[in-house]
């Protein structure tokens, strides 16, 4: 099958692309970042998904399936451009899929969609509304991108659209929201709070995306790995030292502390858990994660 992958130069993008090649698919990659030394079997295009040149790739290459991973978080991208990349990029992706006969579209989203709050339940199911959009504007564009992609389910019923909300990835790449947070020997945590953190090995996350593709999954699904672990236990397990900071100080000094890129509302994500229920995904695909909580953390730690 001919599969187009946007955001292919990212950590997860690369893992997904390599897996697809291994399974005998033809992979077309789009990313505005370069992927030096990409495998020759992967057709790379250095384009911005929102630009005409990216549409040309859809037009001329006619992929049967497409995976959208070209969304960015406030961690890597602080400018207002982030919002445009996420919203207009997702719109362009869905519209090109529709216009150029893509049969299957996968949007790779995040479990932070559900937001963290004192009264939010553990194990969110897919039907729950996003509770963080108003308190965490830096997350609102990702929530909107997720909802926009979901709207393709009724807007373009001829496309098998799948929205995956994946928990934090962790692994040897040391990339990702959680990975960046855990870097450094002293990790600031909010004093008196110790939220459960839901994470998955990056290889398992890539496998879940490929599984969704091979099973022609249709609908919105949470994806998680092993059962969650409190933040302090994770910090210790990766060899770090949790440094408790009172919430008011965190709020005042967030940008000056060891958390250079965290917006103020991120504090809720250090106080309250976001844990998802991924039973629906497991039932629909028979997917099982390979790395347990210890192995996932060890893989991250070993790459130090």
């Amino acid at each position, binding site marked *: 099958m001919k599969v187009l992958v946007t955001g292919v130069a990212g950590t997860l993008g690369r893992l997904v692309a390599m897996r697809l090649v291994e399974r005998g698919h033809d992979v077309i990659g789009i990313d505005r970042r370069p992927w030096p030394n990409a495998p020759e079997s992967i057709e790379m295009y250095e384009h911005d998904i929102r630009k005409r040149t990216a549409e040309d790739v859809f037009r001329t290459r006619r992929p049967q399936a497409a995976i959208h991973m070209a969304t960015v978080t406030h961690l890597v991208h602080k400018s207002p451009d982030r919002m445009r990349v996420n919203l207009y990029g997702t719109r362009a992706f869905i519209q090109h899929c529709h216009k150029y006969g893509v049969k299957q579209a996968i949007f790779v989203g995040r479990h932070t969609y559900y937001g963290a709050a*004192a*009264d*939010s*339940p*553990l*194990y969110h*199911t897919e039907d*729950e509304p996003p509770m963080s959009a108003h308190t965490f504007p830096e997350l609102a564009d990702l929530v909107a991108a997720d909802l926009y992609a979901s709207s393709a389910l009724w807007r373009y019923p001829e496309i098998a659209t799948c929205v995956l909300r994946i928990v934090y990835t962790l692994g040897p790449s040391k990339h990702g929201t959680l990975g960046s947070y855990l870097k450094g020997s002293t990790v600031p945590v*909010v*004093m*008196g*709070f*110790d*939220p*459960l953190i839901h994470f998955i090995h990056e290889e398992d996350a890539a496998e879940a995306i490929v599984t969704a593709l091979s099973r022609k999954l249709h609908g919105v699904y949470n994806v998680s790995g*092993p*059962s*969650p*672990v*409190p933040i302090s*236990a994770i910090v210790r*397990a990766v060899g770090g030292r949790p440094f408790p900071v*009172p*919430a008011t100080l965190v709020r005042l000094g967030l940008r000056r502390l060891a958390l250079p890129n965290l917006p103020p509302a991120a504090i809720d994500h250090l*106080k*309250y*858990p976001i844990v998802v*229920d991924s039973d629906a995904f497991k039932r629909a695909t028979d997917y099982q994660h390979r790395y*347990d*909580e*210890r192995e996932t953390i060890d893989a991250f730690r070993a790459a130090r």
Partner: protein
Amino acid sequence: MLDKLLPIDPEVAARIDSLDLSFNKFGFDPYGISKKDLVRFMSVFSWFYRHYFKVDVYGLENLPPRGRGILVGNHSGGVAIDGAMVMGSMLLDAEPPRLPHSMIDRFIHQFAGASQFMSRTGQFTGNPDQAIRLLRDDRLLLVFPEGARGTAKLAKDADTLVTFGTGFMRLALETKSPIIPFGFVGGGEALPTVANLKALGRLLGVPYVPVTKWGLLVPKPTRFQLLYGKPMVFEGSGHERDDVCGAMVEEVKEKIRDLIRQGRQLREKKITEADLVL
């Protein structure tokens, strides 16, 4: 850390070990309950439960040894001492021990320390999604349908009941869970509140600040009576009209009122254990 200095009671540790919970490689169950923290806390708490206070528990045989259930009872005494005593009776007296998950008020998880402690011991903000999930997982819930209105009763009203919410009944119907009613007597004596400061409470982010006879929020050593009634099973879908559901709630409330009455008579030594109708 201070918690490492706390003594560990081997008997308590053995009871926590026998709980029907599965822990991952870091020692946490899927809801974040920490075996280590439970043992540490209960080791200290057991002294308060057995020696500072004294709880006469009746009707433990009415508790399901396993499987889902909702403990429903009266609230009193300014702060939730009753909740702590129910927790103690379930973990320290019941055979086999069980860990009830209280559905606590949403302000609690907003406080540093409280949030961490509650999270590690399985005490969550009352939320229907959370409650249904726990029940379907065959856990035991602890619900005070009077909520903060219940703890806010002044000492003179400690044995009375205020309005019950209907949420617990809808949960019971939807998940086909038995309700185990309980009556708790003595909350008003341990912490006799004479007033509640609502404005100060708002300032601090709590529903109110109770003021006791002696000013301080320190409970005096008290003997409590805790009576568990026979499980009550109701038939329905959980989506009944309010008046239908309300009638069922009234039945539970009546039972709890009766348990409180008997508990009060026991306390005043007007009846003995042999006279109890649970």
